[in-house]
């Protein structure tokens, strides 16, 4: 099974921290990692990050985190960045943004800003939209770990349990990522799957959320961005030489 962590918060300013995170990920059994690229970062920095991940024998995935304040801002961001990144995630800060992100086919991942129930918008209506558009629900497990440390986890478990049950019933793919900024918040994929037991998720579902679902998103987007892609289901197999 190929395990993927689509949200590794490697620092773009501190290459040593990025190196430590990447080598820990590789040691724990991940094969592919997605690192959010801050807007306005040069190609050189991306190349350097790719090199660090290659040194750790990891497949590097470029990702952009859009945090729009309105649906219009989201559409502008998608127009600008969709073709430049392999994974596009949207931080849903309001219901209007969440609904727009849920129905847009260009969005890969739906994320929430916090675990505060008032600031999470993944409900049945959102799941119905996402099930048609193909967007996945992303949950950062390092964020869960830090929240467990800080406060009572009753509300957190209730909320996540409800969201995951909704996603399951509507067939919305779920992606578990680490979202780790510190190697000590990284866990083996099997340990993250064990943590998902707290949200009433069985081991098979959790392992799919750490492997098949994120890997599928990356593969689909790489195919779409390939120069051989023509249309859905149509791909250039061979180029003929000019006569």
């Amino acid at each position, binding site marked *: 099974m190929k395990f993927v962590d689509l949200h590794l918060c490697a620092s773009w300013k501190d290459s040593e921290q990025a190196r430590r995170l990447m080598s820990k990920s590789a040691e724990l059994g991940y094969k592919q990692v997605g690192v959010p690229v801050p807007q306005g970062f040069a190609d050189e920095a991306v190349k350097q990050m790719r090199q660090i991940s290659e040194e750790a024998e990891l497949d590097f995935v470029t990702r952009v985190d859009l945090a729009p304040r309105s649906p219009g801002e989201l559409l502008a961001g998608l127009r600008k960045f969709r073709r430049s990144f392999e994974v596009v995630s949207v931080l849903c800060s309001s219901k209007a943004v969440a609904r727009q992100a849920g129905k847009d086919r260009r969005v890969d991942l739906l994320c929430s800003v916090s675990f505060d129930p008032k600031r999470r918008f993944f409900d049945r209506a959102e799941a119905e939209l996402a099930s048609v558009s193909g967007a996945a629900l992303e949950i950062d497990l390092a964020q869960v770990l830090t929240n467990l440390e800080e406060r009572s986890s009753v509300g957190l478990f209730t909320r996540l349990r409800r969201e995951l049950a909704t996603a399951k019933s509507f067939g919305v793919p779920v992606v578990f990522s680490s979202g780790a900024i510190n190697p*000590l918040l990284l866990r083996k994929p099997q340990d993250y799957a*064990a943590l998902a037991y*707290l949200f009433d998720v069985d081991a098979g579902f959790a392992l799919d959320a750490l492997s098949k679902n994120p890997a599928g998103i990356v593969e689909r987007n790489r195919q779409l961005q390939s120069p051989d892609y023509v249309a859905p289901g149509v791909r250039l197999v061979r180029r003929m030489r000019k006569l």
Partner: protein
Amino acid sequence: MTRLVRRRYLALKIDCEEPVEPKAVSDAVWNAFLRLFGEVGASQAGLYLVGFDKEKKSGVLRCGHGALPMVRAAIASITRIDDKPAAVHVLRVSGTIKALNRKL
């Protein structure tokens, strides 16, 4: 003769920059389990730290077969040991210590 309680042995590896004591590891596992599953759950889990190597920062934890998913969840949720930032990774799970040593 069949045993009344089927057991599971977990090989653990502690990720911490500072040295850790076996008692602190045991306390961290117990506290995480109690916080998540309460005293009734903990009483049914049969948690016991069988051995711990301070130099390698690795050890073997015993629990009941039925409590394994809960124990793994509790172990994954540990972020501090003795108030120092730490992570606990499960290397292997086995039904006997002998098989666990063979797998490692």
